[in-house]
């Protein structure tokens, strides 16, 4: 889906989610993205704070919205993975994420690390589509 503006994006989002709580959460988050279109590397908690300022929401519904906006249907969020260790941040590619998830390989050391998935975090940046569609 390639909406031409923010209103279309929100309308499409609401059509997909209908009466579910995600419909309202998504509208709030899309408005937030429009107001913070140059943001980079937002932690997932940013969206929790945005949604919960609007009203109390279940974590699972908020994650469903983030998951959806990071997907191919209405791609407004570009997701990246970062390893945070000893106050240093390393951005990971897909192969490194898979190796960490599947085999516990620490992308920095290349060795088995049972805690590696506790050191990897998702972060989000408005996508190219978001910048085109949501910019005022």
């Amino acid at each position, binding site marked *: 889906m390639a909406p031409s503006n923010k209103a279309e994006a929100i309308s499409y989002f609401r059509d997909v989610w209908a009466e579910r709580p995600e419909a309202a959460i998504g509208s709030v988050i899309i408005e937030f993205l429009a107001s913070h279109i140059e943001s980079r590397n937002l932690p*997932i908690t*940013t969206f929790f704070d945005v949604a919960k300022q609007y009203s109390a929401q279940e974590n699972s519904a908020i994650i469903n919205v983030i998951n959806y906006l*990071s997907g191919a249907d209405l*791609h407004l969020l570009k997701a990246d993975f970062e390893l945070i260790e000893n106050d240093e941040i390393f951005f990971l590619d897909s192969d490194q994420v898979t190796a960490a998830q599947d085999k516990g390989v620490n992308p920095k050391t290349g060795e088995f690390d049972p805690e590696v998935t506790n050191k990897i975090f*998702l972060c989000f940046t408005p996508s190219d589509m978001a910048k085109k569609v949501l910019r005022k």
Partner: protein
Amino acid sequence: METFSPNFSLRGLEQLIAADPISRNMVWRLSASSYAEFVNVLYKDLDLVISELELNPQHYQNDCEDKLTAFIISMLKMKGYDASHGTTGGGSKDITVNGSAPSWSWIGEAKIYNSITDLREGFLQLSTRYRNVDPLKSCGGLLAYTRREYAADLMDKWKKAVGKIPLRNFRVCPCPSRDRLGFISVHDHISSGLPFEVRHLAICLYHRPLDKSGRTAKKYQDKS
């Protein structure tokens, strides 16, 4: 922006979404970097969606093919897939799923499995009419909605029948996640000459309970 919620790691996120039917497999979807990985996680997600249908078959007894397929497309969309019905590419496909890369597509044909002929026609549409975006990345699926008993036996019959269709280099292999309710076939696509892989799946919607309420309910008696 100042944040108040505690951040959570990949492990924390996985624990949070493990039981959620929509965002489960989120990390796999986001980290898929090849067509094979896209299809692999799509199949995990499709199996979850099919389970949702099979969990309450009583709700779907009177639904037509299009309505059942619309449910599947809706659930795939909520998971973030660019899933649609009726998109062209040789004809009006039942299901098209596009991935985050332009050349990643998966096409599906859905039929109510009343007879072998129904599935045969669906399979022929899929394998000789419709097209993926990229012939080098060609996977599809045949979804068989079964409202008759013993879906596994019905799939065995279909597996024998599809083997008789003259297709170059046709071979079959198991579908471990669906046991006898699914199998995978590969043959050389008639247009490109390249392998076209099809996942054949039964979706079990038979519902005729034999307990006392089931035996006496009018809606089940009308079926006999």
